């Protein structure tokens, strides 16, 4: 049978970020997908040679626009662990609250994009409308909608006062009611189930062997969540990873919908238990040594490897982002799928290509 090669990307209406795939197609069935990335490669890992370790927080935050806060938080955690800086408890709780707000906004963004990939534009608009309330909370507490700019080495830069906490909690109730209506459509609507159900099935063993992380792994039944490692304030909060067993795109969507409500519950717990105190400690000296830190981004497990030799600049800064780990799974899912399912399968791993390429 004759094969055609269809170029998909880097500019495509369904892609949030540029990635190029050469799809080798026979009739309507995709036989192979060859990736080509590098369109958003900014060489951020080499920028450590120019920016010192304190300024580098701002670069780390700008690795990605969607998961930016947790990048900044992971960098600060890595340097604090390397230099043995004790972060005050209030700062750890604040980081948890902002991290969970970042997770809610990222999942809502993804839900909107998935609806758009299926052609369900009105649901896309509703998801992003709900996301605006979350972004308003973030802007009121940190000053920025997308790049929070609130993490620094030794703590956080801004505090959330008691009446701001009351505002957040009342806004969360409105957001939760909104999310109830939207997730009901995602989980029970017939057309959504037909587009997502049974598409792109990853068995438990396959997902583990391919090195998947995050919701992709949890939707195949492996309960692995880096928040259980207990960084920031997660040791004192009550959470269990949200898992499903089917391993198809519907399960991945359901895991992310479940995580929305889990994040709201975590924010409520954190704001209820937040201790008074200072929000940052002073940092002196230079980092020396090496460290590997792992945190849970909305897309999965992110690994930060830092190496320093006592100077103002780090020697090596390496980020292994969750989309990088999920790309082999996407390439495997694309083999043997129908051409019309390609947008759903590309989006189902929640690709954040600017994270992948740094």
């Amino acid at each position: 049978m004759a094969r055609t090669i269809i170029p998909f990307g880097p500019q495509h209406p369904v892609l949030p970020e540029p990635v190029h795939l050469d799809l080798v197609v026979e009739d309507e069935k995709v036989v192979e997908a060859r990736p080509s990335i590098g369109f958003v490669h900014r060489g951020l890992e080499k920028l450590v040679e120019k920016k010192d370790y304190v300024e580098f927080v701002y670069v780390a935050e700008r690795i990605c626009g969607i998961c930016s806060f947790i990048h900044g938080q992971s960098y600060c955690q890595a340097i604090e662990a390397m230099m043995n800086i004790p972060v005050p408890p209030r700062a750890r709780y604040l980081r948890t609250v902002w991290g969970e707000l970042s997770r809610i906004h990222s999942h809502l963004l993804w839900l909107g994009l998935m609806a758009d990939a299926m052609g369900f534009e009105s649901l896309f608009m509703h998801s992003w409308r709900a996301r605006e309330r979350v972004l308003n909370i973030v802007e009121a507490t940190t000053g920025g909608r997308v790049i929070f700019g609130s993490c620094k080495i030794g703590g956080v830069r801004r505090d959330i006062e008691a009446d701001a906490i009351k505002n957040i909690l009342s806004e969360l109730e409105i957001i939760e009611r909104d999310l109830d209506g939207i997730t009901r459509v995602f989980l029970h609507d017939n057309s959504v189930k037909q587009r997502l159900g049974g598409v792109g099935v990853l068995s438990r063993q396959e997902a583990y062997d391919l090195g998947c992380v995050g919701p992709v792994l949890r939707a195949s039944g492996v309960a692995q969540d880096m928040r259980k490692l207990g960084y920031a304030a997660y040791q004192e909060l009550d959470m269990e990873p949200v898992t499903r067993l089917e391993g198809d795109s519907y399960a991945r969507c359901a895991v992310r919908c479940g995580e929305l409500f889990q994040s709201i519950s975590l924010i409520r717990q954190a704001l209820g238990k937040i201790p008074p105190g200072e929000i940052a400690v002073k940092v002196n000296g230079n980092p020396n040594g090496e460290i590997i830190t792992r945190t849970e981004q909305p897309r999965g497990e992110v690994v930060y490897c830092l190496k320093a030799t006592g100077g103002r600049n780090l020697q090596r800064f390496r980020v292994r982002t969750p989309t990088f780990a999920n790309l082999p799974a996407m390439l495997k899912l694309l083999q043997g799928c129908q051409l019309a399912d390609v947008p759903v399968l590309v989006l189902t791993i929640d690709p954040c290509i600017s994270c992948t390429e740094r």
Partner: protein
Amino acid sequence: MPYFQMSRLALKWAFTKPPTTAYPFEPRRAIAGSRGQLVFTKDNCVYCTVCAKKCPTGALKVDRAQKMFIIERLRCISCACCVEICPKNSLSLSTDHGFPVTTKTSESYCGS
């Protein structure tokens, strides 16, 4: 049940005021505390150059001898590092957003 999930949402929002603002015909609703453009108060500044040293992007240049404060607006990321470190409270962030320009220029303020 699986066929009318969206209609509940659609009906509710058909009779609710839209959450969008018809900007620029309606005024912009800025959120207090939002980080916008840098505001420089010339009278308080002593040209100590600490803000220029702290700026992570190098958007500020301060000349103590000639009493010049130069800011490149397009380089500024509104991180507020300079606002925190200024000993004389001559810098603050407003909630305005930056405007698109056609050429890269710097703004300079001279104190002498």
